[in-house]
C-alpha cells in the first residue's frame, strides 16, 4: 500500500491518500488493433534488422551498459551532476512529514513544468487545512512519489470535485524585450513526441 502524503506545520499534520490521476480514468481511452483474416487480434512483434529473429513481448530486456559491454544494475547507479560529481539521491517523501507553505499565489502554479497530477483523499486534518483549501487557498510542499535525483514541488488545490496535488518543477521563462530578437533555443522547441497520441 502506498504511504500517505503527510504535510506538517507547527507539529500538526494533515494526511492524504494519493492516487495518480490520468486522462483515461476520467474520459476513457482508445486503442487501435490489427485483425488477421479470421478477425482475430494480431500481436505486434519486432523483426531484427538481419531478419533472423522475431521478438514478441517478453523476449527482450533492456538496461544500462558500460562501453566495454558490462551490464550495470540499477541499484549500482547514483545521481551524477553536470560536473561528474556524485550527488544526493532524494528518497520518496511519502510517509514522511513535509513542511507545508501557504497561502501560495495561484499564478505560481503556471510556472510549473508539470510531471504528474494526483487525486488526494483527506484521511486526517489535525492542521485544519480543509476549510482553507475548500475556500480556494493553495499550499505547496516538497513531493517525491519515489526516490529521484531532485525533489519536486506539489501544489495542493481543491475544487467541488475533490483535492489534488499538481506536481512538477518550476521553470522560469525568458522575458521578451523590444530590442531583443528572441527566438526559442533549439533544444526548447516544442516536439510532437511530447504528445501522447494514444489518447483522445
Amino acid at each position: 500500500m502506498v504511504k500517505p502524503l503527510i504535510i506538517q506545520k507547527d507539529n500538526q499534520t494533515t494526511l492524504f491518500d494519493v492516487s495518480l490521476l490520468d486522462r483515461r480514468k476520467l474520459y476513457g481511452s482508445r486503442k487501435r488493433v490489427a485483425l488477421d483474416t479470421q478477425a482475430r487480434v494480431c500481436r505486434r512483434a519486432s523483426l531484427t534488422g538481419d531478419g533472423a529473429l522475431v521478438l514478441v513481448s517478453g523476449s527482450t530486456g533492456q538496461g544500462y551498459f558500460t562501453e566495454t559491454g558490462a551490464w550495470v544494475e540499477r541499484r549500482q547507479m547514483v545521481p551524477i551532476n553536470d560536473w561528474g560529481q556524485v550527488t544526493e539521491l532524494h528518497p520518496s517523501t511519502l510517509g514522511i512529514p513535509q513542511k507545508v507553505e501557504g497561502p501560495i499565489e495561484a499564478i505560481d502554479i503556471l510556472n510549473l513544468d508539470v510531471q504528474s497530477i494526483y487525486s488526494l483523499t483527506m484521511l486526517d486534518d489535525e492542521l485544519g487545512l480543509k476549510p482553507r483549501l475548500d475556500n480556494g487557498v493553495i499550499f505547496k510542499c516538497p513531493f517525491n512519489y519515489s526516490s529521484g535525483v531532485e525533489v519536486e514541488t506539489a501544489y495542493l488545490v481543491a475544487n467541488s470535485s475533490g483535492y489534488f496535488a499538481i506536481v512538477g518543477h518550476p521553470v522560469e521563462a525568458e522575458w521578451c524585450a523590444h530590442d531583443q530578437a528572441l527566438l526559442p533555443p533549439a533544444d526548447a522547441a516544442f516536439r510532437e513526441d511530447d504528445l501522447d497520441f494514444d489518447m483522445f
Partner: protein
Amino acid sequence: MSDSIKLTDAKGRDASVALGGLKHIPSAVIGLPNERLTFRRFVSATQELSHEAMEKSFGENYGQHIVDGDPEIDMEQTGLFIDQTQTIYLDGDGEALFTEPEVVEILFDPQGEEKERRVPIDTLSNVDSAAPIRWTGKNILVTEAVRRFAFQRRLQLFHVNGITFDFLFEIAKTLHDNQSLMLVGAGDKGTDPLIFRANGKPYRGFLHGRVDNTRFQLFLLLSAMELKNPSLETSL
C-alpha cells in the same frame, strides 16, 4: 508541427509568431562516476524457447529441466544487442502476417471496459503555421483556472520582429491586467480543441500573459484534462 504558429488577438488580427517549449532540465542524471553508460535493448528469450515451446517439449512441469540443463536459453541469441527492428504483426496462430491487416479502433470507458469497436477515425492536426489559433473572448480568472484544469504543457510565444512584439505585448498586457487566461481554439470559430499532430491528443489552449514595464511573457497553456475525482465521475 513547425516551431511557429499563427495567432489572432481580440481584434481578430492574426500574426505568425515563434513557439518554444519550457522544460525543466534535471540537475543530475543517474549513472556511474567516470563511466559512460548507454541504454540498450537485448534479446532475453527466443520464441522457440518460450513457455509454450518448453511445455510442448518437456511437459507441464519442466522446472527440473531448466535447473539441470538451461534448455530455456539459446546460447547463440540470448544477450545479443538489438539495434534496428521492424514492426510486424503475428496472426492468431503466431505466424507472421504477410498481408495488410484490418485495423479497428476499440474504445474503453473510464473503468477500462470495452464499449465500442469501430472503423478508425483519423483526426487531422489543426495547429500549423497557416491556420490561426483563435481568441475566443472567454476569460477565466487565474485563481479559478488553476483549480479547474490540469495544465500539462506550457509553451512560450516569442516575437519575430517589431510588429509581432507589439502584437504579443498587447495580448500579454490585456491578460496581465485582467489576471485571467484567455481560452483559444482552432477552427473557423475557435471552438475546436488544439491538435498538434495527426491523431494526437486534443488540448484546450489558454493564453497566459505577464508584463514587466516594457517586457512581456506570453504562454500557451495546454490542458487535456480537468481536475476531477475519478470515483465521483464514474459513480454518476
